[in-house]
């Protein structure tokens, strides 16, 4: 477990470094395209620094808000609070803040930067469909993510990568449709030179590569982590059948979630889907952040 904490810290620092370079490159590319030169880079560096500091200290709030999670008191949800408190006692860490997400698909996630600053959120659908031991199984899995600092890495991935993808998509679209930066077309027509074209090509390539890069880093949120959290969670509750039964229920339940998006998919207990009705879309399987649920059940049953 201590190696995993250390590994997560290393990964987080590496991610912050890579995303910084990536953002600087994107800023430079935008500068090239709009012909503003080094200004783009300067702004990008400033944005990157602000973004990273923000991601570290309040990424959890951002993630919770994007899921439209609301804090619940122990009077609202006594069962949920009792279970979270019990698991925190078993793990010997402070009790995380407790949130509920207004979604019908049964799911859950944990966020924060360390066990002292952590939150767990469950969907209304999870509360409605699971009995006590199943809920305990799911929350044990989330508590394992808290203990291993998976939440730190996951939250920073969600916020930083989310922002990079957002920024580059924004500029890519505006450039594609010629929404702004009229100067570009004027000058392009004027010289028709090869140098201009190369600059465009580089800028364009960087803009396209950035989100793909982002995806790849996110996939590094290894699916193995989910197996590990399953096992560790079951060790915490000392009752694997609870988690197995919860996974079986989730496998048969609808997955569509309104608040599902690519930036936070990896944080959830099970991969949320944006497609109504079906299990998971084909693209989503290709870029899947979670191992198949059947596989997770099998591994738990072998324990």
């Amino acid at each position: 477990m201590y190696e995993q904490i250390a590994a997560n810290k290393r990964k987080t620092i590496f991610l912050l470094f890579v995303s910084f370079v990536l953002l600087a490159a994107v800023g430079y590319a935008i500068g090239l395209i709009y012909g503003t030169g080094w200004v783009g880079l300067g702004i990008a560096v400033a944005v990157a620094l602000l973004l990273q500091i923000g991601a570290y200290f309040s990424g959890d709030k951002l993630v919770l808000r994007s899921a439209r999670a609301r804090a619940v008191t122990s009077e609202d949800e006594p069962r949920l609070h009792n279970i979270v408190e019990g698991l925190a006692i078993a793990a010997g860490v402070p009790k995380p803040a407790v949130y509920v997400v207004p979604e019908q698909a049964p799911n859950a996630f944990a966020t924060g930067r360390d066990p002292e600053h952590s939150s767990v959120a469950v969907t209304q659908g999870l509360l409605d469909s699971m009995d006590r031991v199943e809920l305990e199984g799911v929350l044990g899995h989330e508590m394992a993510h808290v203990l291993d600092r998976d939440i730190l890495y996951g939250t920073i991935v969600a916020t930083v990568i989310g922002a990079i993808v957002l920024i580059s998509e924004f500029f890519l679209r505006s450039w594609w449709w010629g929404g702004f930066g009229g100067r570009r077309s004027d000058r392009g027509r004027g010289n028709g030179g090869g140098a201009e074209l190369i600059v465009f090509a580089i800028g364009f390539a960087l803009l396209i590569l950035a989100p793909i890069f982002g995806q790849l880093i996110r996939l590094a949120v290894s699916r193995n982590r989910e197996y590990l959290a399953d096992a560790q969670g079951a060790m915490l509750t000392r009752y694997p059948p609870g988690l197995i039964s919860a996974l079986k229920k989730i496998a048969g339940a609808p997955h569509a979630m309104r608040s599902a998006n690519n930036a936070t998919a990896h944080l959830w207990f099970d991969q949320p889907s944006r497609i109504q009705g079906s299990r998971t879309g084909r693209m989503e399987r290709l870029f899947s952040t979670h191992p198949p649920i059947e596989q997770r059940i099998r591994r738990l049953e072998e324990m």
Partner: protein
Amino acid sequence: MVIWIVVGVVVVLLLWAVLTYNRLVALRNRVENGWSQIDVQLRRRYDLIPNLIETVKGYAAHEREVFETITQARTQAMGATGVQDQAHAENEITAGLGRLIAVAERYPDLKANQNFLALQEELIGTESKIAYSRQFYNDQVARLNTLIQKFPANVLARLGHFEPKAFFDIDEPVRGPVQVDL
């Protein structure tokens, strides 16, 4: 040359002693912290018992025997000293509460009572927290006892008067969905 080797060995030994001693202290504190967690949850259960009995009494006043055994076990547990004694008294309470809930199952009006349902959730929650805090405490005790008994840390443990702690062995409340007879 020889002097430096001696100095080196002494420094390494001192470093080891400091690190090991600190680990022993940290573990002992965790054990104590674990015990106080158990204590908090046990107390919460003592507080719940009178309320629970009052609520059940309103529907099943004649089940006096069950009420009396629980009240007696509670008094005994609250006065218990030492881990073994405590564990024994707590087992009596757990058994008594199990019977009380079984009695409640026979009264449909009681089972629909909002107050009773809230108390039952509190009871289940508290009992699972007792189990979890016991789990944490016993894990820490096992680690402390192992360290105290293993060579060479045992030398240091004896010098620092570190004693092995007793495990807290109580019966687990039954896990899983409750069986309901139809």
